[in-house]
């Protein structure tokens, strides 16, 4: 029956062509000022250059692409209608997915440096992915669980990074000493920002936090006495292995000499990788535990309906502030690691784009989903890396991917929410 109905609805060839022609026309209008025409600098003055073949190609591609895409989508829809699965079946499959996937990811992460022990690039990239995973898990507390839209998360990341950089270069603090202090300081900044602004409606909060992120960056650029301005802070000490530095030579005990190994620069790369893996897993454990505690349930309840929360006697200001502080603290800790790993930081690393990427990771992953954050970080970090061959197109592809993933799955890659506790009653229902 549905087949018959759809067959009637399926557009004729003429309609398809007209549709594709309309798209091609819009493409032409969009393309003329950007692709067809450009200005080039010739001897200090601009001249107009034309690229009509490029424009023609673009329009033709749009025409053909639309024709094929529409055709394919119609086919797909038809196929889906015909073999509609039994009700309930997809839900079950959906639920089974995350449990083994999470352990699988952890297992792969654990053995990755051993498998690729000769490939510095892969371990480095994986370390970057893990930084984003940790940041994503931190922001997930604020955005995913508590539902507070924050566009300036990078500010807390910067606070952590600069805190460690200054303590280490000025006062000789070690990584492990600075970590709790930086986390605490970032949490303090979170409270400072949250206290006056948490009464604001969602989108107002977004713009205020964006403004806060910019304020922190501008201060870092201009307060040269503190931050060394745009030049940044260099030669930040790297973390040590319980006091054993990673360096060649025999002056004092080093990591290599202590374990009787030959010095290799890879040791530090591996150590940093396992360090961020440990920090990230600690974050994961911490956040997952919190989610199952009253505070975590209150976060989610505030996200769902803050008025109902108040009617149940929950002080929503405290709940939101705690989410802010904990999210900020985790961001700060990630910042400490970032500074220690790079050895050099400058305000360049803490622009709005960074906030946007972290937020995208949380939303693309599926708000509140821990595993979703991992998958989204993989996609968003690896996508530009894979596109390195056509380096100039990578951010273009990145933007397009953000749009496409959202359209494909508006709830995020993993939008399933696991309850924090279950009733196992007399009926024995698990």
């Amino acid at each position, binding site marked *: 029956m549905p087949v018959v109905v759809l067959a009637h609805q399926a557009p004729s060839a003429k309609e398809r062509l007209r549709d594709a022609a309309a798209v091609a026309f819009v493409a032409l209008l969009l393309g003329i000022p950007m692709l067809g025409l450009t200005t080039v600098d010739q001897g200090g003055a601009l001249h107009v250059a034309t690229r009509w073949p490029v424009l023609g190609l673009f329009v033709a591609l749009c025409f053909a692409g639309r024709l094929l895409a529409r055709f394919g989508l119609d086919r797909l829809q038809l196929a889906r209608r015909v073999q509609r699965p039994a009700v309930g079946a997809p839900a079950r499959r959906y639920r089974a997915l995350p449990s083994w996937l999470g352990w699988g990811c952890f297992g792969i992460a654990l053995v990755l440096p051993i498998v690729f022990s000769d490939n510095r690039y892969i371990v480095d990239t994986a370390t970057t992915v893990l930084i984003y995973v940790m940041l994503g898990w931190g922001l997930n507390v604020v955005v995913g669980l508590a539902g507070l839209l924050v566009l300036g998360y990078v500010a807390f990341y910067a606070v952590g990074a600069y805190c460690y950089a200054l303590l280490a270069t000025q006062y000789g603090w070690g990584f492990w000493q600075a970590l709790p202090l930086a986390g605490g300081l970032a949490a303090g900044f979170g409270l400072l920002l949250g206290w006056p602004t948490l009464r604001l409606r969602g989108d107002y909060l977004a713009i205020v936090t964006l403004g806060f992120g910019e304020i922190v960056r501008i201060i870092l650029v201009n307060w040269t006495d503190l931050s060394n301005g745009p030049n940044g802070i260099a030669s930040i000490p790297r973390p040590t292995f319980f006091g054993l530095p990673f360096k060649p030579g025999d002056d004092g005990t080093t990591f290599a000499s202590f374990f009787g190994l030959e010095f290799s620069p890879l040791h530090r790369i591996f150590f940093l990788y396992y360090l961020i893996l440990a920090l990230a897993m600690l974050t994961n454990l911490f956040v997952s535990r919190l989610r199952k505690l009253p505070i975590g349930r209150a976060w989610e309840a505030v996200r769902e309906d803050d008025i109902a929360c108040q009617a149940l006697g929950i002080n929503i200001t405290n709940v939101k502030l705690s989410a802010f502080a904990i999210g900020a603290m985790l961001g700060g800790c990630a910042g400490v690691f970032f500074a220690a790993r790079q050895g050099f930081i400058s305000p360049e690393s803490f622009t709005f784009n960074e906030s946007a990427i972290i937020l995208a990771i949380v939303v693309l992953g599926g708000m509140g989903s821990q595993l979703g954050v991992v998958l989204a970080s993989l996609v968003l970090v690896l996508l530009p890396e894979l596109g390195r061959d056509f380096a100039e197109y990578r951010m273009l592809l990145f933007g397009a991917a953000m749009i496409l993933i959202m359209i494909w799955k508006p709830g995020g890659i993993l939008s399933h929410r696991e309850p924090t*506790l279950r009733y196992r009653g007399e009926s024995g229902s698990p």
Partner: protein
Amino acid sequence: MNPYRLLLHVDRLSMRFGGLMAIDDLSFDVHAGRITAVIGPNGAGKTTFFNCLTGFYRPTAGRVCLHHPQRGVLDLETLESHQVASQAQVVRTFQNVRLFPKMTVLENLIVAQHNRLQQASRFSLAGLIGLPGYRRAEAQAIEVAVDRLKRLNLIERADSVAGDLPYGMQRRIEIARALCVDPILLCLDEPAAGLNPRESAELNELLQSLVRDEGLAILLIEHDMNVVMNVSDHICVLNYGRKIAEGSPAEIRNNPHVIKAYLGEEEEDEDGAMKFPAESVP
């Protein structure tokens, strides 16, 4: 004269929105162990009254005194909305159901016990390392929730996502959740709206049993006259923010002012009693 203890005393309460007097000099009493209904045509100020009572609005004038059995007299109009629930133990439901739609029914009821659990978790520290004290508190909270769910016939749905359930059931869940806060006064805003006749009969029974068995006081806003007339001990009628009548169901049924407010000037049945229209609620 009245054998029931005074619980809530509303004293000359007024609420003004710009030029509109939503509540105008309203005074009445609520007694412990009784069901008091607030009725009136749409726009009479009933929900506004609830909002003033539970700290969502600050009244323009007047007082709302709660005579708490342990904590003495509390001025509700000075408390924040969350303090009304946590300190005064006055808990409300909403006209348009406000559950936590993506959380399960059980989670909804556990969230309602937040303050107790949060203290037991020592602001999450004891909870994080899983100390036995916290575990006990959690088990106890689950027990309370399960008990409420059983009582409201919802236990089968404990692990269902609240937002996916039918409307009538969501209304019951909201009442169950409110009960988990351990109220002494339960304020229900149109609990029977959208229920079918069988469900609203069950609601009648539930309300009466809550008062009978647990000694709760209930303050009820309702349009469904079946519910109001059957369960209420005392009715207060509002129109344009003013109290126009107060009394037992029988008194209200025959009160000419009430009939006028509901039906207009001349419309009156031969026997003088009015038939309340079962108003459809948006």
